[in-house]
């Protein structure tokens, strides 16, 4: 069965695995993970340059064919997110931005309201906007109206590796929103990524799970395979579930005609 590509803002991708670049122990692990996982969209962040020490620039470790998606991490409101997005665009590294507005240091939950405001402003300026939200139908509808290119609902708390705690709410977005749904945050294992794809998510973004794994490149490959497996399962459709057994071999006796009874 052949799949259609993931299309975001008119750009086609064969990979449905987006990779974040934070928390990697070293830059080689990052490059190896991008290659092993086959990611074609990779997130980065913007920060003040440390004037005291020389740091290798992260962009040197991202293959040139990869689409850069700058996040607005550190933004506490729409205005700050817009400022970060404009700075990123000024670098000449593209106009794709992941809106991430967080104003809570304990749960790190995104502020949907501010995210919608930032999406409106940046979409009007020609940015390709991928907003990160708590899965909420009304927020997602507002994002469609605001010109978002995708909707990125969280699976569970950022960096928690807890998987799809918000599963039912993400399913609502998959069913109702006519934009690519990319499950972001909290996906800690390939099985969880596969589960998201089986539900009909269009793609999965992972970072902490890969970056903090004992062998990041191997786990990146495992995620890529799981995402592909989950996608194929979705395209096929899953069979009905039953609460009693249904034999998969013929139920007539091996040598006799009677069926087992009890």
């Amino acid at each position, binding site marked *: 069965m052949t799949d259609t590509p993931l299309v975001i803002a008119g750009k086609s991708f064969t990979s449905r695995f987006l990779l*974040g*670049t*934070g*928390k*990697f122990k070293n830059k080689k692990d*990052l490059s190896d993970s991008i290659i092993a996982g086959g990611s074609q969209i990779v*997130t*980065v*962040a*913007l*920060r*003040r*340059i440390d*004037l005291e020490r*020389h*740091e290798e*620039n*992260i*962009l040197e470790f991202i293959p040139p064919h990869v689409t850069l998606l*700058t*996040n607005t*991490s550190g933004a506490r409101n729409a205005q700050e997110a817009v400022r970060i997005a*404009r*700075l*990123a665009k*000024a*670098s000449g*590294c593209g106009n794709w931005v992941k809106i991430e507005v967080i104003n809570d240091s304990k749960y790190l939950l995104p502020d949907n309201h501010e995210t919608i405001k930032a999406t409106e402003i940046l979409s009007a300026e020609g940015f390709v906007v991928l907003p990160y939200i708590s899965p909420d139908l009304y927020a997602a509808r507002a994002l469609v109206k605001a010109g978002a290119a995708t909707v990125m609902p969280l699976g569970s708390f*950022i960096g928690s590796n807890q998987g799809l705690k918000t599963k039912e709410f993400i399913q609502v977005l998959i069913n109702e929103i006519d934009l690519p749904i990319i499950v972001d*945050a909290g996906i800690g294992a390939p099985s969880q990524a596969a589960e998201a794809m089986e539900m009909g998510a269009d793609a999965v*973004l992972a*970072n*902490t799970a890969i*970056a903090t794994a004992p062998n990041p490149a191997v786990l990146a490959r495992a995620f890529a395979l799981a995402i592909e497996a989950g996608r194929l399962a979705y395209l096929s459709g899953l069979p009905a579930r039953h609460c009693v057994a249904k034999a998969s071999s013929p139920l007539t006796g091996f040598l006799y005609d009677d069926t087992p009874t009890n």
Partner: protein
Amino acid sequence: MNIIINGKSQQLTSKKNLSDIVDTFCKQSKHVITELNGTIVPSDQWAQTNLQDGDALELVTFVGGG
């Protein structure tokens, strides 16, 4: 004169433009983005942009993030 770079006061002994500042304070100029008093200055305007006493400059670049 004094300017604020990334939140820290820096003493400049002579008149400097933004290009000089990036060369002095950043190990490499590639992927450096500058914001002077809240306004982004594209790299092709660095050489014509002279720093004034009391200016607030942000020098930012890309780092890892999810």
